[in-house]
């Protein structure tokens, strides 16, 4: 019943406003967290054995009667479901304490659950138009969540995000329309078969360009990244973690890779364009992050940079490159969410996001400083934490694919990443304790639980990475390297 991944958050989201009237805090907190925990456990225990023999299409049921909904469960979808559930659990745990002073917790949980339902639906779709539909569900929920604080900055950031995202969705829809005009269908199998039969390069190239612009904006790839440094800092910290940790990956990278690799087939032109965009993103993000004073803005630019690594890994096209890209996607979800949650804890305790004004917080907030240090070292690629292994895989794949220049550039990007994270750690946590912060307290209980959990996962993933690769990443890589053949297997949908 993989359908539960979509139905449970959807139903709970619709019941949330009613529950909010009964109990303002306790019941929404409890139900949201229980749901996320259940989905996480469910994805490991129930869903993992389903794909033991390769991807399946599962029919959805509603109390015994079969609905005409078929969901795609294969290595790539399951991997994304697992990542989404993990980050969502951390975010809902964190929100128990953080959203207290925003008010309207039931409404917040409802929107968050809708966003999660949208992302899960996108990942399980078998159809181009379903991808668009659930993309919009997650996007509309995220517009409201970014503006949740109702201050001037949040509203301005949310409006700019909405405008750019709506244009991107229009491009995606236009590409879907053209494909529908060419092949007469919108399912993955029908489109793949139709395009193979037709063989019109220019129009397919035009559609690829439209998809690249649309999904590239959702994934914040340079030059479509301008909304991210405004939207991510202004959102409440758990929402920044959700956006940077999963939404840009699911609605941007997953959708783009699913369509490019399984439906269109990766052509040399696409490979070169994606590699160039990846490298440019790495550098633009890293160099812009260096000069930032606002801690969350620096983290937002860092997201742009790391997504560049992920796209570069996928663009190489070889199985090792795809493996590196997927592993880095998972790792980035872990440590970027952790960093944003910590930044939120710091902002809540000190009331500022400016690195100039902070200093020496490690003495007053030891747990936050420790988990933030783990995340910074991971993202900078220090062994044996998880970021090192994923970046190493990407660099080795670049060398193997005879692109040594890009490999050197990727290593340089990693050095710059280390630099600005050291700056962040030194200015915020270490150094002399600023007099103004003598009385700040450590982050509240549930926020600490959430961040410690993510930090432990970073360490465990780094130490046990062969196990992670074998059990979760290898099936996903097989699906993506399978190319168009995977979609042709699902003909008839």
């Amino acid at each position, binding site marked *: 019943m993989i359908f539960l991944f979509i139905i449970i958050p959807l139903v709970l989201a619709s019941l949330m406003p009613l529950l909010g009237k009964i109990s303002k805090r306790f019941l929404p907190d409890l139900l949201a967290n229980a749901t996320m925990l259940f989905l996480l456990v469910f994805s490991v225990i129930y869903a993992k054995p389903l794909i033991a023999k390769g991807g399946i299409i599962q029919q959805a049921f509603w109390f015994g009667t079969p609905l005409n909904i078929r969901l795609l469960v294969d290595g790539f979808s399951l991997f994304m479901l697992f990542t989404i559930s993990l980050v969502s659990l951390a975010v809902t745990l964190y929100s128990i304490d953080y959203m207290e002073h925003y008010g309207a917790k039931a409404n917040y949980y409802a929107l968050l659950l809708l966003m999660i339902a949208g992302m899960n639906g996108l990942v399980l779709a078998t159809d181009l138009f*379903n991808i668009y539909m659930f993309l*919009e569900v997650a996007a509309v929920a995220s517009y*409201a969540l970014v*503006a949740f604080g109702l201050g001037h900055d949040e509203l301005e950031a949310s409006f700019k995000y909405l405008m750019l995202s709506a244009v991107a969705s229009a491009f995606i829809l236009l590409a879907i329309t053209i494909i529908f005009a060419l092949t007469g269908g919108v399912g993955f199998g029908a489109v793949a078969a*139709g395009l193979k039969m037709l063989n019109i390069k220019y*129009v397919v190239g035009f559609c690829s360009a439209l998809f690249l612009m649309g999904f590239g904006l959702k994934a914040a790839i340079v030059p479509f990244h301008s909304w991210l440094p405004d939207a991510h800092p202004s959102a409440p910290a758990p929402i920044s973690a959700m956006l940077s940790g999963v939404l840009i990956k699911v609605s941007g990278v997953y959708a783009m890779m699913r369509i490019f690799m399984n439906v269109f087939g990766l052509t040399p032109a696409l490979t070169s364009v994606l590699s160039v965009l990846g490298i440019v993103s790495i550098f633009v993000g890293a160099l812009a992050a260096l000069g930032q004073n606002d801690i969350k803005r620096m983290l937002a630019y860092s997201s742009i940079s790391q997504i560049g690594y992920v796209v570069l890994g996928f663009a190489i096209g070889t199985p090792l490159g795809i493996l590196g890209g997927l592993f880095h996607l998972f790792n980035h979800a872990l440590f970027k969410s952790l960093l944003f949650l910590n930044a939120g804890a710091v902002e809540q305790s000190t009331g500022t*996001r400016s690195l100039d*004004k902070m200093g020496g917080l490690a003495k007053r907030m030891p747990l936050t400083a420790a988990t933030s240090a783990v995340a910074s070292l991971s993202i900078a690629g220090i062994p044996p934490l998880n970021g090192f292994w994923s970046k190493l895989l990407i660099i080795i794949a670049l060398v193997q694919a005879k692109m040594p220049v890009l490999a050197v550039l990727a290593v340089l990007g990693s050095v710059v990443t280390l630099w600005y994270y050291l700056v962040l750690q030194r200015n915020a946590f270490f150094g002399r304790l600023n007099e103004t912060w003598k009385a700040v307290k450590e982050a509240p209980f549930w926020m600490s639980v959430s961040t410690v959990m993510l930090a432990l996962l970073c360490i465990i993933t780094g130490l046990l990475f062969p196990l992670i690769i074998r059990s979760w990443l290898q099936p996903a890589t097989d699906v993506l390297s399978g190319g168009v053949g995977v979609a042709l297997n699902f003909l008839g949908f």
Partner: protein
Amino acid sequence: MHLLLMIGLVVFSIVSVLIHDLLKAAISLAAASIFLALIFFRMNAVYAGVFEVSVVAGLITVLFITAIALTRSDENVNESKYHLFIFPLFFAGLVIIDVLVMKNLLGRIPAISSPETGSFGDVLWKGRSFDLIGQIGVIFAGVLAVLALFRPKGKSAQGDKHE
């Protein structure tokens, strides 16, 4: 006849973009929707036409007019005067590129005919059921978004903290 409807659609869209008064722009958008719905009816797409009239020409126009009524602008937003010169040039260029591209590129697309499909009810409810779940989700998202954005502010809202 069809050509007249299309010209009407394009003309009313241009009017809604260029006109300064927001209320008239919204009404011009509604008129464009009605022309589009007539085009849909002529192509035998009755359900799309009905939806277009009732939702776009009806609901969205009402939303726009409500928003225009609920907002007030202390001074009118000054749009540059050079729109009246730039837009005809832009539009002429657009039409020329359009005609060239359409004639050359799209003429070469071979037509694949699809198999006969069932009735509309079958296709919508049975074929696209997953989309319906998406529609329910997006409607909830819109409603909750409006509720969240218009909630009464109890304590001071977060934000307006700049460094």
